[in-house]
């Protein structure tokens, strides 16, 4: 339906007036803030920056009626004014990077080609963040008009936007004579990802003679989620550096499918230990039992370095097999492997490992003792409880003392009553050893019992017990206990 001319003019005027009203809510406050940027006082300048940030945050909060539209209009208004300083405009543009809409794209596009390089860059960064196809199109259009340095920045911006419409432009620039532009184009295609981008990268990979571009393409093929097995195999076998080869092998093994077993065998036999590492870990964590079996079988012949890797990746294999691997590794006698084996046994050990762990705790090597103690504490087997209980009842003081030390690491039923029984006993060496362990595990109830024991003791043992009570009562004991201890 066509309106009469007069009515059209009225409608247009109303729209302009609405737009002006819509856009003016924050204008005066913005202008006041921009004036503060001209102050020579740095604190005033900072206050203006923060004020600008707070104002834009307020306008763009969820639920604010047309706040985003209004603040865009007012920011634009201030940017157009000649009496707003360069410094203020820089910060206005930074806010448009956060709050900008397609409404400001035209102005920002113009500013990208303005005389001021600082404002031009800030305008580009704002466009980089503004959602919608208009901003992407503006960046693409700018490409043709820009010099080399600016083109690299624009390419990065397009990549950051994951702008699929830029794929053709980027694909063309993969072949750019300027290495920097070609590398940037490769990275941008990698960020965009998808079949088209991958196809362009793959096609250029075979053709590029520039080492830096080739490396960039390899990495971005991996970054873009390349899943083609033959392409990954190509990267694994012929990638330009070990990092790319490693990444390709890792992807190949993780995704499975055709060629995986061959890649696994190749990886396990690779001269490069990094490749063997990837193969070992991938195989051990694979859902395919055949892969796990392959590594377990080969573990008996593995070099120590490779076995160390395997020991750290046993979580996915059947517990008994993991335990046997760890025990065999421990028996090799290499200190590093022994430590790793103890760590593994903490999780996969069973009653089979009880003797090994107790024996390892008895070694002179401090780190192995610590790891053994930890493994003893964690071992999910009641046999360990039985063993330590038996040691507590042993006729050998050495065994009893070892068991007492381990009570600080393993929670054994009735152990504390046995410990207190030793304190009450006649053997002074064991009294002392038991009292050495007690502070780390004592509860208030234990102190009550200890107090009773002290009353029946004489000489040095009594003195030792009283010293422990005086130390622990203020920390753990009731007021009643504390006053009783003070009277000792």
């Amino acid at each position: 339906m066509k309106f009469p001319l007069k009515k059209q003019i009225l409608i247009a005027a109303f729209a302009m007036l609405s737009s002006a009203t819509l856009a003016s809510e924050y204008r005066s406050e913005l202008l006041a803030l921009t004036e503060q940027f001209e102050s020579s006082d740095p604190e005033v300048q900072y206050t203006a920056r923060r004020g600008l940030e707070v104002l834009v945050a307020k306008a763009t909060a969820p639920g604010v009626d047309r706040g985003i539209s209004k603040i865009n209009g007012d920011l634009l208004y201030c940017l157009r004014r000649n009496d707003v300083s360069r410094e203020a405009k820089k910060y206005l543009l930074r806010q448009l990077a956060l709050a900008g809409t397609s409404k400001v794209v035209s102005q920002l596009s113009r500013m990208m080609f303005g005389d001021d390089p600082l404002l031009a860059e800030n305008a580009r960064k704002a466009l980089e963040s503004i959602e919608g196809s208009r901003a992407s199109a503006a960046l693409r259009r700018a490409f043709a008009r820009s010099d080399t340095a600016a083109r690299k920045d624009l390419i990065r911006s397009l990549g950051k936007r994951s702008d699929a419409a830029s794929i053709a432009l980027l694909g063309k620039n993969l072949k750019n004579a300027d290495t920097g532009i070609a590398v940037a184009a490769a990275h941008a295609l990698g960020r965009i990802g998808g079949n088209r981008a991958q196809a362009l990268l793959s096609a250029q990979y075979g053709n590029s003679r520039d080492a830096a571009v080739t490396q960039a393409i390899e990495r971005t093929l991996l970054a873009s989620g390349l899943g083609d097995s033959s392409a990954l195999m190509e990267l694994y076998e012929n990638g330009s550096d070990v990092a790319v080869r490693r990444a390709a092998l890792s992807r190949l093994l993780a995704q499975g499918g055709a060629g995986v077993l061959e890649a696994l065998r190749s990886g396990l036999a690779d001269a490069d230990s990094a490749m063997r590492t990837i193969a070992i870990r991938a195989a051990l964590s694979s859902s395919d039992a055949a892969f796990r079996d392959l590594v377990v079988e080969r573990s008996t012949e593995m070099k120590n370095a490779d076995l160390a890797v395997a020991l750290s990746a046993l979580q996915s294999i059947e517990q008994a097999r993991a335990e046997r691997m760890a025990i065999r590794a421990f028996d090799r006698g290499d200190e590093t492997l022994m430590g790793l084996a103890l760590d593994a046994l903490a999780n996969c050990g069973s009653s089979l490992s009880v003797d090994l762990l107790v024996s390892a705790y008895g070694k002179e090597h401090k780190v192995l003792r610590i790891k053994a103690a930890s493994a003893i504490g964690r071992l999910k087997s009641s046999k360990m409880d039985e063993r330590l209980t038996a040691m507590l009842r042993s006729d050998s003081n050495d065994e009893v003392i070892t068991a007492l030390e381990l009570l600080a690491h393993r929670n054994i039923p009735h152990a504390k009553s046995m410990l207190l029984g030793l304190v009450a006993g006649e053997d002074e060496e064991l009294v002392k050893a038991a009292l050495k362990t007690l502070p780390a595990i004592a509860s208030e109830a234990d102190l009550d019992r200890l107090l009773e024991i002290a009353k029946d003791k004489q000489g040095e043992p009594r003195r030792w017990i009283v010293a422990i009570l005086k130390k622990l009562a203020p920390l753990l004991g009731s007021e009643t206990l504390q006053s009783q201890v003070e009277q000792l």
Partner: protein
Amino acid sequence: MNKLTRRSAIKMSLKAAAAISAPLFLPSSVLGLRGRVGPNSRITIGLIGHGKIMKGHRSYHLGRDTVEVVALCDVDRRKLDMALTEVKDMTGKTCPTYEYYEELCARSDIDAVVVGTPDHWHAQIAIEAMKNGKDVYVEKPMTLTIEEGKVMRETLHRYGNVLQVGSQQRSNRSFRKAAELVLNGYIGKVRTVSARLGEFPAPTQYPEEPIPAGFNYDRWLGPAPWEPYNLERVKGDYGGGWRSFWDYGSRKNGDWGAHHYDIIQWALGRDESGPVEFVPKGYEDTENQYFVYDDGVKVIRGYGREGAMIHFVGDEGEVMVSRGDQFETKSPSLKNVVLKSSDVRLYESSDHRADWLNAIRTRKQPICNVNIGHRSATICQLSGISERLGRPIRWDPVSEQIVGDSNAAKWMSRPRRAPYGLLG
């Protein structure tokens, strides 16, 4: 040209392109471990960023027989010279120095790097190192933005590196014990946790000063917005300096939050997840900034100097833990609980750097890996975003997206100053 020849040609071309200085040590490649370290070989390390925190790393690694420091990098010539002097004094040897970390990362004879720069450079340097096949120790918080964390995570998974984040409290026995008590329900249902972070002076603008000779300030700024140079802006100062600026870090939420929020995540069993809402101080009379998990656990940021660094309050007890092995419980007996074999045991490490070195050898991820570092840093960043916007932020830890606030969601990344784009 057959494939083998092309590959060799490309390799030679890359080597010629990279600025590699002749090393004065035996790289692991000579020991027959090309690209990876066997259990008993030396690990060759490059140290990047020689401010306050790197001093501890330098002393540690220079004092170990199993490690060789073979490269130093900084954009400040003066700091680089001081670091090199220390290397010479402690080892009797010299090593190449670099202004550009890219050159250091391109060296095929370096196994690993330590990144000790300000936060805004952590991600890019770590990514470059990983893409070059290096293992990484990066200081906390792992990243400046959530986007950086996602890219780092993807990069590591793609290249298979070992990465440790410098949240070294996880390698302290007291913090681990506190976390195990909480995780295993010894204080019952957790209700609140308070974290004491302290406060920095408010950021401000400083007058421009001449840039000191030998300091590449443009490079120091890197992806951060251009600001005129002033020493107060760049200095490493645990009470302020660059740490107090939003452009380079997340202020106290990043500086100390990266430590304490990390322990809280660990204790609550949330390493694969995170909170769901962040509320800033001052919002509708909120006295202290806080965040909340989906089960109602509330983590409150305390400001004072009193009290424990982290204080867990549950229905059946409390755990208070601070550095210096200060560890207390209510009731006191809780402190002496020996975990049962059925209890969940947390990863044990007694030396954060050694744990990383061991992980390099075994290829098992260390105690504070990239996933954990990203999740903890995300809390730092979301706390900061809600503070800057002055309003609550809702977060979906599964999709890792800000919910219902499209403008706040833009803060998950930041515009990067050219030419310092983030390359994953």
